[in-house]
């Protein structure tokens, strides 16, 4: 039993989860006071954002922070361990959640509030925060399931048949994925006798390599389904376009990235096995990053097309799991992609509201009516494609540097081709939505403020990317050389 006192500052590690979980529960109790719910939810999310910011500052100053629950000694108790990668993603997710709540404020239907959109949102954020900050693999599974339950609720919210259809597919495929994750966990526990991430790093060297490679492959498959990587991505375009747009933004921006995070994290714990799996991951990464934007070109439903662009981005992000050199670029890419994809879903939702349709062939002429929307959409397309002063350029530059440095020309060329295809897909969407002749009258557009908040952040980070790149470098360093991480948990390196 650990006897030394825990400084209150260490509670920063658990606070993002605790605030969301407690806040969500409080909102459930206060379900009779719907007028209070959005404001309370917003206050809690601002609190989470502040805590994440403080945690990030502390990690950048003095390395990973850890707390093991209930005075147990580290490999036995459940550790929460925050390093730069997890906290960067958690911060971005909290920012997205704030924008999502702001956009729900104006347009959430009364039935959605009655069904508990705000408590579910906070529960989802508790799961997301827990997944990004936990230092224990079984605990990661628990947070995955918390996210899954909350996201089920959010997908069926208000419950029209379209959403029920989507939720059935989303639910079953994702439940199978988490069950595969659990299976891999059981096998890993059987092989190593521990599920504490820091302890796995030390224990993995002594186990049978072949067994561990099979287990790592099972983990990779489970997380690939969660992240919507190519051969197992069909659930995403079948479901993410059906809930209200702010919910789509939250799911599309944050949830798939948790899968990518878990893939990067778990394969970083087993570097030898990652090298064995590298050819397979490279193949699916290339397929995903090319087929995503190609499918977006062939899609006529706006938010489904955005979903395919999202899948293309996932392909780029998982190059970090294929080659060690691509890890810094992949981390920065995932961090910015959370913001950019959420913003794109929000803007797509605004477009659908303004035109009253989801079909890009029936849109058009929006340019004359709303220049702000067209500028935001265009800036986001450029940010996703990675055109220089915009945000997506910097991680792609890092990725190219890493890939070419490692001599991985195939991935590097695919990345460039994927960016070109993304640009073509985005430009086509833009011209359909904004330039083509208009046949029907425009509807009253809802509030732009939340989308402007996210797009503004994207533009700002695009012209001043040093902070993001710096965090990505620290995160990649800690991932490649986990000595600081292991010591922070309290184990011998």
């Amino acid at each position: 039993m650990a006897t030394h006192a825990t400084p209150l500052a260490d509670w920063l590690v658990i606070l993002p989860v605790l605030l969301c979980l407690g806040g969500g529960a409080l909102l459930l109790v206060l379900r009779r006071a719907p007028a209070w719910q959005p404001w309370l939810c917003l206050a809690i999310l601002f609190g989470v954002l502040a805590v994440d910011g403080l945690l990030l500052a502390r990690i950048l100053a003095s390395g990973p922070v850890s707390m093991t629950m209930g005075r147990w000694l580290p490999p036995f108790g459940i550790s929460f361990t925050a390093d730069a990668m997890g906290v960067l993603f958690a911060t971005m997710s909290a920012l997205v959640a704030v924008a999502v709540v702001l956009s729900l404020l104006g347009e959430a239907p009364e039935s959605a509030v009655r069904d508990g959109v705000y408590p579910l949102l906070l529960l989802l954020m508790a799961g997301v925060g827990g997944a990004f900050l936990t230092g224990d693999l079984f605990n990661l599974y628990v947070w995955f399931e918390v996210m899954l339950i909350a996201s089920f609720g959010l997908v069926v919210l208000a419950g029209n048949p379209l959403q029920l259809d989507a939720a059935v597919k989303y639910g079953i495929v994702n439940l199978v994925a988490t069950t595969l994750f659990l299976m891999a966990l059981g096998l890993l526990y059987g092989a190593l006798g521990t599920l504490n991430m820091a302890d796995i790093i030390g224990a993995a060297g002594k186990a049978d390599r072949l067994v561990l490679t099979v287990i790592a492959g099972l983990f990779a498959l489970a997380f690939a389904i969660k992240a919507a990587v190519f051969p197992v991505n069909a659930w995403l375009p079948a479901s993410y376009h059906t809930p209200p747009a702010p919910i789509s933004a939250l799911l599309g921006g944050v949830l798939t990235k948790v899968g990518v995070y878990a893939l990067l994290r778990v394969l970083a714990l087993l570097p030898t096995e990652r090298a064995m799996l590298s050819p397979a991951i490279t193949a699916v990464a290339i397929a995903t990053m090319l087929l995503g934007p190609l499918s977006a070109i062939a899609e006529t439903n706006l938010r489904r097309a955005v979903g395919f662009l999202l899948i293309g981005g996932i392909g780029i992000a998982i190059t970090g799991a294929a080659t060690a050199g691509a890890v810094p670029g992949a981390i920065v890419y995932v961090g910015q992609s959370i913001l950019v994809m959420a913003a794109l879903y929000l803007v797509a939702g605004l477009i659908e509201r303004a035109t009253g349709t989801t079909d890009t062939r029936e849109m058009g002429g929006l340019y004359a009516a709303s220049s702000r929307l067209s500028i935001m959409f265009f800036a986001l397309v450029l940010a996703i494609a990675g055109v220089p002063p915009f945000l997506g350029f910097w991680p792609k530059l890092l990725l190219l540097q890493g890939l070419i440095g490692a001599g991985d020309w195939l991935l590097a060329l695919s990345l460039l081709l994927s960016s070109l295809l993304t640009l073509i897909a985005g430009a086509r969407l833009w011209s359909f939505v904004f330039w083509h002749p208009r046949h029907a009258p425009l509807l009253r557009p809802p509030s732009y403020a939340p989308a402007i908040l996210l797009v503004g952040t994207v533009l700002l980070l695009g012209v001043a990317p040093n902070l993001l790149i710096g965090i990505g470098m620290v995160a990649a360093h800690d991932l490649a050389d986990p000595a600081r991480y292991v010591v922070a948990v309290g184990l011998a390196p």
Partner: protein
Amino acid sequence: MEAALSLLVGLFVASAIYLILSRALVRVLLGIVLLGNGVNLLIFVAGRLTRGAPPIVPKGANVPAGAFANPLPQALILTAIVIGFALFAFLAVLAFRAYQAMDADDTDHMRLAEPEAQPQPPLEY
């Protein structure tokens, strides 16, 4: 004993996959339950099978007396059962609602979110 139980796990998972590949939603749900149980059994076997007393510390002692069963896999399984139960309950309600809304329990007829005759996008810019 481990070998026999491992075969049983394989049988569970194989039957589960057979059921999940079915088009009827109810069978898919049953398959998911079976898969969850197979995985729970797998964790149990992975934690090594030991004949021993329950790991409960008697009054006045600090450790359980004699050989005791490994409690960690059981804790993991208990957590997984609870979570699996919650998710299955949710999916059951969902499937029921979907059946009411779409009058279909055959996944081939559930094509609202992905219409079958997807129109081609315009070829020009």
